[in-house]
């Protein structure tokens, strides 16, 4: 037991002095998630809000041919601005990106309208330009609505109810609660947390195995009168500690950054108070044993620090797989799924954020199953350390 403690203490001291480990454990892991998340949220809020509230600047050629249409567009928060003079110039301007969208009203517009021939309005746009897509959609929608108004007026003039144009009334009823809506986006969170947890212990796991071998400090260590199992247990526990630190920093970081994100404007009220942070930590932290032992196992097979880094990075991606599959298939949590590490943590965390009551059976299976798998991987590591080929 004292060997495990001594190795643990040494690895922790050693790695607290290693800038690389500190950077990944205390900075990279915890900050990567919140920053990326804040970026995505702000972007999508901007997108959804800009639709109606921001005025759209729309160049129109031949606006003098359709004064009523122009009035309608202006009342719909669209500013008519000066654009290219001719249709040819407009096509050039759009294709080389000077304009996102240009509307062309031909001379015959008023005449056609009066004679009830469908009057042509051209919307010049570049489908390949994703930025122009939203503006084009808004311009086309406004034009279509204007056309519908005219159609209704024409029907009314002829004594026909405009209702004949609307045989169906489709009404969507959204039953999601605000916390439920946020869960879709916040479901991404569980991966950020698992990512932070894994990056926290990554350097230590590599340093304690491949790094130790590369430095030549492994062989003298194995000459000491200690059990190799105890050496590896101490190392794995030290990696677990760094993972737990990184995880808790990441959770705390999210707790504060979520307050500054405009989630209410997206109709979300994330449930991420101090109690949720604590519960999330307790739900996620058993995964550290799986992560630490898996990384140690992978790093033990490699010959150098660099090679270990390459392979251990794969371990960073592994936990995404079950989360991804489940997100696509929209699987409901079940007891059987709770045996899968990373997946069970993801499902429990999503439930937690949705403000659903914790299913204690699920929690027990998740924690127990994850710890058993982590223990199994640790045991395999210990077996590996008993081989003499370990020194390479």
């Amino acid at each position, binding site marked *: 037991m004292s060997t495990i403690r001594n*190795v643990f203490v040494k690895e922790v001291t050693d790695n607290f002095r290693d800038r690389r480990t500190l950077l990944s454990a205390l900075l990279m892991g915890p900050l990567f998630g919140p920053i990326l998340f804040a970026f995505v949220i702000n972007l999508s809020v901007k997108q959804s809000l800009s639709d109606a509230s921001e005025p759209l600047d729309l160049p129109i050629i031949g606006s003098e041919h359709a004064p009523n249409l122009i009035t309608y567009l202006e009342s719909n928060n669209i500013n008519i601005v000066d654009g290219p003079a001719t249709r040819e110039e407009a096509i050039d301007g759009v294709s080389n990106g000077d304009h996102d969208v240009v509307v062309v009203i031909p001379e015959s517009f008023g005449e056609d309208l009066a004679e009830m021939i469908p009057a042509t309005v051209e919307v010049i746009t570049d489908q390949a330009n994703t930025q122009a897509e939203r503006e084009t959609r808004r311009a086309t929608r406004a034009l279509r609505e204007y056309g519908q108004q005219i159609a209704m007026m024409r029907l009314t003039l002829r004594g026909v109810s405009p209702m004949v144009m609307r045989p169906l009334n489709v009404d969507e009823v959204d039953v999601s609660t605000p916390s439920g809506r946020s869960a879709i986006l916040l479901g991404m969170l569980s991966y950020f947390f698992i990512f932070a947890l894994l990056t926290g212990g990554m350097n230590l796991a590599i340093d304690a195995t491949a790094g130790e071998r590369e430095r030549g400090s492994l062989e*003298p260590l194995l000459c000491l*009168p200690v059990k190799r199992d105890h050496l590896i247990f101490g190392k794995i526990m030290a990696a677990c500690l760094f993972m737990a630190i990184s995880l808790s920093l990441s959770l705390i970081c999210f707790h504060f950054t979520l307050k500054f994100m405009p989630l209410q404007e997206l109709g979300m009220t994330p449930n991420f108070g101090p109690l949720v942070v604590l519960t999330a930590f307790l739900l996620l932290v058993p995964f550290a044993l799986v992560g630490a032992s898996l990384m140690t196992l992978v790093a033990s097979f490699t010959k150098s620090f660099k090679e270990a880094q390459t392979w251990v990075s794969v371990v960073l991606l592994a936990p995404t797989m079950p989360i991804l599959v489940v997100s696509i298939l929209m699987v409901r949590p079940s007891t059987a799924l709770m045996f899968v590490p990373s997946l069970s943590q993801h499902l429990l965390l999503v439930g937690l954020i949705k403000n659903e009551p914790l299913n204690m059976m699920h929690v027990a299976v998740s924690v127990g199953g994850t710890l058993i798998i982590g223990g199994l991987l640790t045991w395999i590591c210990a077996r590996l350390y008993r081989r003499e080929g370990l020194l390479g």
Partner: protein
Amino acid sequence: MIRVEDLHKSFGEVKAVQGISFEADNGKITGLLGPNGAGKSTTLRVLYTVLKPDSGSATIDGVDVVTDSLAARARIGTLPHGSGLYPHLTARENIAYYAKLYDMPGEAIDDAVQKVIDQLDINDFADRRTKGFSQGQRTKVSLARSLVHGPQNVILDEPSNGLDVMATRSLRELIRQLKRAGKCVLFSSHVMQEVAALCDEIVIIAEGRVALHDTAEGIRNATGCDDLEDAFVKAIAMVEPAS
């Protein structure tokens, strides 16, 4: 005391050690001498229990290295070839870490570490982190940590590799000190002069076998060469290539 009997060890097709036997007594310095790839390191690695022999046996103070490897390891201090230190720890911390893993009682550790630091004369850099240490400084610290528990048997694998003249001299002095203290010192080298200058007994190894085991004087007589280097070359030639 270290005793090796008819040791065999192969790595796949390569027969590294093919029946090596010798004894290294307390209060004596025994040198394993041989060209590169002769099987010196493999023999020593079996002795400090990192490798398991295919057949034959080895004992440290009568403790078998295979059946009771933990007890055997407790009786030796080892300097494996190319030993590395922990760059983020100071020299003192590196030594103390090993003292703890040797399971020395907590209150005795500080004194034992200071004693070995004095013994190896490394006070000047004892409290600096070992990152950037010279080869000589690194070897001294590695040696200090393997001697911190005062082992009866000391096994050194090519300890003078990469050391300058001054560092080599102080290493020799230390090895003589250990001998005077009645320890059993076993070390390997491929440098004839070094072995001749230091050793009471020389075991010349070639092709995984013992070519000669004698004192420096005895080897000169057996080979009929006055010059030890010539004697070394002749002794190696006595072992016929395996195939």
